[in-house]
């Protein structure tokens, strides 16, 4: 197991390296540059600016400089859109917010999704099953840019339970934090809750008719024990394998949520940096995002072996 993890970590570094390299070059192919604006800069001025950011150097040299800075110092350099801030500072500002939003959304998704899926799976083809699954279906069928404004309209404007926008953060206390963060977390989490409910139910159904469940039943274990000991564990496997990509999708999904709710997270930079051709910031967000993903996938794979002893990587 340890060897497996070490091997995976080494290959992860390789993966990251490939991603940085590919991103760097693809980014440079994209039409337009960071300093193209509606008003064309006089060529000389543009040259001066490009010299400042080493954009006048040959591509491989730019790549070398960038890699050196990233590998040796973990530094992505100054942003080209916000020149007196470094990419590291910008990411450090946004990451905690996005992470918190993501974690809250994931929690909501699990709290709603797992029980819903389990109940639905156990009571297959009953009214409960149908209504839960219809709800889950609705969850994946409503785009988050529709759900968000809808929730704002209902809970912030009609009932006035929560704030319509902004982000207070935990530093302002739990109450104010929930006031601003519950609706966005719910909006973000709903889709995944629905997804998890379906996966859980699917996994349950698969498992329930597996041999060992039958054996367990035959042995006279109570239905509750069967569910808890075996079916639940098995049903979680597809959910666990989904968590990695789910978290990744959440980071992207938060782009929309952060816009709707005016949240100062990473999502904004994720999209805008690409549109602005802010090369260092693009690279920074991609690397951060990829690193998170690679790590999460590793965790998921390890969990996999723990949950299903028949899967082994050695």
């Amino acid at each position: 197991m340890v060897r497996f993890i070490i091997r995976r970590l080494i290959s992860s570094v390789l993966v990251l390296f490939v991603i940085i390299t590919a991103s760097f070059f693809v980014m440079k192919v994209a039409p337009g540059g960071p300093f193209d604006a509606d008003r064309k800069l006089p060529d000389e001025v543009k040259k001066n600016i490009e010299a400042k950011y080493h954009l006048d150097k040959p591509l491989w040299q730019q790549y070398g400089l960038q890699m050196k800075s990233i590998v040796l110092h973990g530094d992505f350099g100054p942003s080209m859109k916000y020149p007196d801030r470094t990419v590291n500072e910008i990411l450090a500002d946004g990451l905690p917010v996005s992470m918190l939003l993501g974690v809250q959304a994931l929690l909501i998704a699990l709290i709603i999704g797992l029980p819903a899926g389990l109940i639905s799976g156990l009571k297959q083809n009953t009214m409960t099953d149908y209504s839960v699954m219809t709800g889950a279906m609705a969850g994946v069928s409503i785009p988050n840019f529709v759900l968000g404004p809808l929730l704002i309209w209902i809970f912030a404007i009609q009932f006035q339970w929560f704030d319509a926008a902004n982000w207070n953060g935990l530093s302002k206390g739990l109450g104010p934090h929930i006031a601003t963060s519950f609706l966005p977390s719910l909006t973000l989490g709903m889709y995944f809750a629905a997804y998890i409910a379906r996966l859980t139910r699917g996994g349950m159904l698969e498992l329930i008719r597996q041999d060992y469940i039958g054996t367990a039943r035959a042995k006279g274990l109570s239905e509750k024990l069967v569910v808890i000991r075996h079916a639940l564990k098995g049903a979680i496997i597809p959910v666990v394998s989904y968590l990695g990509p789910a978290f990744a999708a959440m980071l992207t999904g938060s782009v929309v949520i952060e816009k709707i709710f005016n949240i100062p997270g990473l999502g904004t930079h994720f999209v805008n940096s690409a549109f602005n051709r802010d090369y260092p910031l693009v690279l920074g967000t991609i690397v951060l995002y990829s690193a998170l993903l690679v790590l999460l996938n590793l965790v998921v794979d390890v969990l996999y072996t723990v949950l299903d002893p028949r899967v082994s990587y050695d």
Partner: protein
Amino acid sequence: MTEPQNDGARGESGAEQGPPIKGTSLWADAGKRLLKNRAALAGAIIVLFMALCAVLFPYIQSDLTRFRFDEQHLSAQPKPVGARSVPETFFRIDAEMKGKFDYIDADGDGSIDRKELSAAMRMGEFNTLDSDESGYLGAAELADAPLNLIKDDAEYTLKILDVDGDGKLSPEEAHEGELTDIMPESETRFFIGQFDKDDDRGLSAAEFPGLPLPETHYFGTDELGRDLLTRVVMGGRVSLLVGFIATMVSFLIGIIWGATAGFYGGKVDNLMMRFVDVMYGLPFMFLVILLMVIFQEMPADKKLFLLFMALGAVQWLTMARIVRGQVITLKGREFVEAARAIGVGKRIIIFRHLIPNALGPIIVYLTLTVPAVMLQEAFLSFLGLGVQAPYASWGSLAAEGAKAFREYPWLIIFPGSALAMTLLSLNFFGDGLRDALDPQVRKD
């Protein structure tokens, strides 16, 4: 084709199983079970209905809604549900009005010009709204009229539009308030031009065919006064196409990749799944911009094709993972060993035994991929890589509607419901299909 064939390996489970059955009878059996599942059946019917609408779109446009999807009936605000306009191309004619020529020709010069035509239509609409024929619109009549003010109550509308403060709306006030102008002068040119044989920009008594009939916008109109029903039907074409084709693409790539990786395991698995990791690590947005770069000069129809590929290419990753996960769990099962022992080739094991067994979760995932793809298409359209205006998809219509959903709720309700309903139906159908394919479900 599914587990029952390998009953030898599963004998000990003690589940009641029929004798080995041939593939065809399995599917026929599944079909029967599917027909019994009412939710799945309803889903299938709704999806078929949507698909039918999409196919019949040209006829719906010309004979049902009578509005072309791109014809604009401009107004200061989108027209609400039930508002009327005169179609530009597919209009019907009220020939009875031919007799009212002298009345319509207000200046008596023997020719109906654009102004007179517009005024006649306006008056007609006013009379339609004026149900008590008092010559004025009161609050009660406004309550029934298709209005478009934020406060959707007649009293308020009356207060806003009633310039002279007499508590009722005269035809002039109604016109000013954009309640009756169903054929503004700028929209009369085409109608007059079509019947104006002597080209004098007016219709003589001989040329005058009668007045065109206003048609109702059953779903209201969008920002540019285009009939939303027509556009929703047209949007369905694009959305369904994107959903199905992109899902198929992801299905094909994902299943081959995942099954291979999971089955061979070891170095192959590692290499293949690291590749998937790398692809996951490339954020979706990035892929989109990449495509924008490379295929900048493509004509619009090819861009649509590209869209299918792009969406499929994103979705196959998860598909591959799920298949691989299934294969890894199934690999350890006895029947694979058994098959190997009797010398069945690897390829046959993958495609004959492993894939069919992994089908359940895959179908679940497929049914979830279609909505995901349709949603991503909306995101893409939003960014400018999707369908080119004036075409639209459900997703792009809903994305636009979401921006103003408090003011003009119909802009999101109709395309949003069409999208949600279709996705819901697809999901129910997919579930039903899965249950039907897996006979074990019956006993639970």
